[in-house]
């Protein structure tokens, strides 16, 4: 397994500061009765202050699992982190005790989820649930915590926060519920916020409002934002950098502008072609052929090769770069761009 070179600072958005989170060669597998599912197979990335890193991939690509590994909220068993490190504030979280990890969740790294209705506890008021952050981590009294909850609800622009603090999640609209989740996540000014498909369950207009809110909060606090999504439009609008995942690996990484303008991996290329474009009105959508890989039996060589239109097999391949047998490492293709394809230069056309 070739490890990406982490000694070199990666392309970051202009004005971003130092690294706040570093994931190093993370491996996660699920040990189920029907076999081992390799969900994350050596993922590495860095997140800088003020950076928005989008992790893009289809269902089962390992994007959510790697985020849950960072949060330490994987269900273990069946999930097992089999290798790698998660570095936050100079410490490897995976080497910390459960109690030390717990103290990072909230003030250090926090997370918001896709479905705010099921992610909020139905039997407690939103004020109580937001206030819990202050009570658990700051030892605040119930009354003070509620006061802070109102301030936070104001900050995420929930109208009439003072009157709604004692309302229950089911009494809010979808967009407002997601704001409650965001209020809870930013309560303790985390350095890193992981947003796992934060707008997927929302109407398009509400999606934009929620993303705007996240960006505004990021500007105010300077937190790093990891945005997990399969929505290319959202990535294009808000992210600085993007990492594309496939079968538990990062297959391409670079700035959003570069990657979207000119993908270096056939899978990214396929993703771009499968999305409707305003300019290409009337043209045909090109779906990626085949099925997402079965993580219990990932294809040998490049995991994408069975679906790849550019694959080179047998004698057609350059020696050592046979797509069905040789696993392509994530490597630097052009400055600021890495891809895990033997033939990235051809894909890029450089």
């Amino acid at each position, binding site marked *: 397994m070739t490890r990406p070179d982490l000694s070199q600072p990666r392309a970051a958005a202009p004005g971003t500061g130092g690294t706040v989170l570093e994931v190093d060669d993370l491996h996660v597998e699920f040990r189920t009765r029907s076999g081992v599912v390799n969900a994350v197979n050596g993922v590495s990335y860095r997140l800088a202050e003020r950076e928005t890193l989008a992790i893009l991939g289809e269902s089962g690509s390992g994007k959510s699992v790697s985020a849950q590994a960072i949060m330490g*909220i994987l269900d273990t068993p069946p999930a097992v982190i089999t290798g790698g490190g998660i570095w936050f504030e100079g410490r490897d979280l995976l080497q910390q005790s459960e109690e030390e990890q717990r103290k990072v*969740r909230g003030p250090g790294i926090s997370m918001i*989820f896709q479905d705010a209705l099921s*992610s909020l*506890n*139905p039997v407690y008021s939103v004020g109580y649930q937001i206030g*819990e952050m202050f009570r*658990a981590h700051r030892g605040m009294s119930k009354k003070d915590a509620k006061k802070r909850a109102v301030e936070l609800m104001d900050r995420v622009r929930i109208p009439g926060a003072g009157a709604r603090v004692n309302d*229950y999640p089911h009494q809010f609209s979808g967009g407002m519920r997601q704001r409650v*989740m965001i209020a809870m996540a930013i309560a303790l000014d985390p350095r890193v916020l992981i947003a796992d498909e934060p707008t997927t369950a929302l109407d398009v207009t509400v999606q934009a409002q929620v993303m705007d809110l996240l960006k505004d909060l990021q500007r105010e606090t300077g937190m790093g934002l990891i945005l997990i999504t399969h929505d290319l439009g959202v990535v294009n609008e808000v992210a600085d950098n993007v990492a594309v995942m496939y079968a538990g690996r990062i297959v391409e990484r670079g700035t959003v502008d570069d990657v979207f303008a000119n993908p270096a991996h056939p899978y990214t290329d396929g993703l771009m072609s499968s999305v409707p474009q305003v300019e290409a009105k009337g043209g045909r959508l090109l779906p990626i052929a085949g099925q997402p890989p079965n993580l219990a039996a990932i294809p040998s060589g490049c995991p994408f090769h069975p679906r790849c239109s550019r694959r080179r097999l047998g004698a057609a391949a350059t020696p050592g770069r046979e797509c069905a047998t040789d696993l392509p490492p994530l490597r630097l293709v052009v400055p600021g761009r890495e891809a895990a394809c033997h033939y990235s230069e051809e894909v890029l056309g450089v």
Partner: protein
Amino acid sequence: MGRYVARRLLLTIPVLIGASFLIFAMVYALPGDPIRALGGDRPLAPAVVAQLRDEYNLDDPLVVQYAKYVGDLLQGDFGTDFRGREVLDTIEQRLPVTIQLAVVAILFEAVIGIIAGVLAGIRRNGFLDNVVLVSSTIVVSVPILVLAFVAQFVFGLQLGWFPISGIGEGWYSFVLPGLVLAAGSLAYVARLTRTSVAENMRADYVRTAKAKGLPRRTVIVRHTLRNSLIPVVTFIGADIGTLMGGAIVTESVFNLPGIGRAIFDAVRAQEGAVVVGIVTLMVFFFIFFNLVVDVLYAVLDPRIRYD
């Protein structure tokens, strides 16, 4: 909420009328002659029989008998048994015993059942989970009668820990019968809690609670248990009514002078007034506790509102 409760209480009136009439009709339909049975081997004099039949309205048609019964009832008269004893006296004397038994049984059911279920549920497929699974299966599959005798033999006779008959030792007398009475429901509560907790442990909001960095204890007690206990509370509440009426076997085996024994004796003697009085009271308890459960439901789950 207040209006809802008032409406539900008003609804109990037709239910009580219907239930008491059905019971009355069943006693009426029982074969045999209750008056003749009073004399035992020696037949009563025809004049005495006629007098008693008239006193207890036994020669009237069913509907007339029932109407007379309800008429008396509305004046607070529960009637008397064939020995002239007031039914209300019997209830006053017997009810406390049954209530004590039910309280002990409910305590066992709730405390042991919930604790076992929670321990099993938070570590699914762990050792304790299997212990609870096996023991609850055994308890559920053994008839209560067998359970009662085994308990009497082992804990009463062999070990000598508990009294096995009567109520001579106060609350302590109710430990063994309470456990036996609760056994089936206890196993059910344990299984129900276990399933509910295991399911809730995987709920999205529990994942959120972990992601918030709450201590494990808080995650389990506040975010898992409260939601998990909603179906359990419903079951236990409804079970109070059942236990009060279902104590017939337990009261007989442990020789407890409770309501269950009274019903049993009254049915055998075809004492219509006694049976109807007590069973109607049981029906009322049952309805009442169901109402309490429904109100509690709204307290536990803010999504449920009755207005």
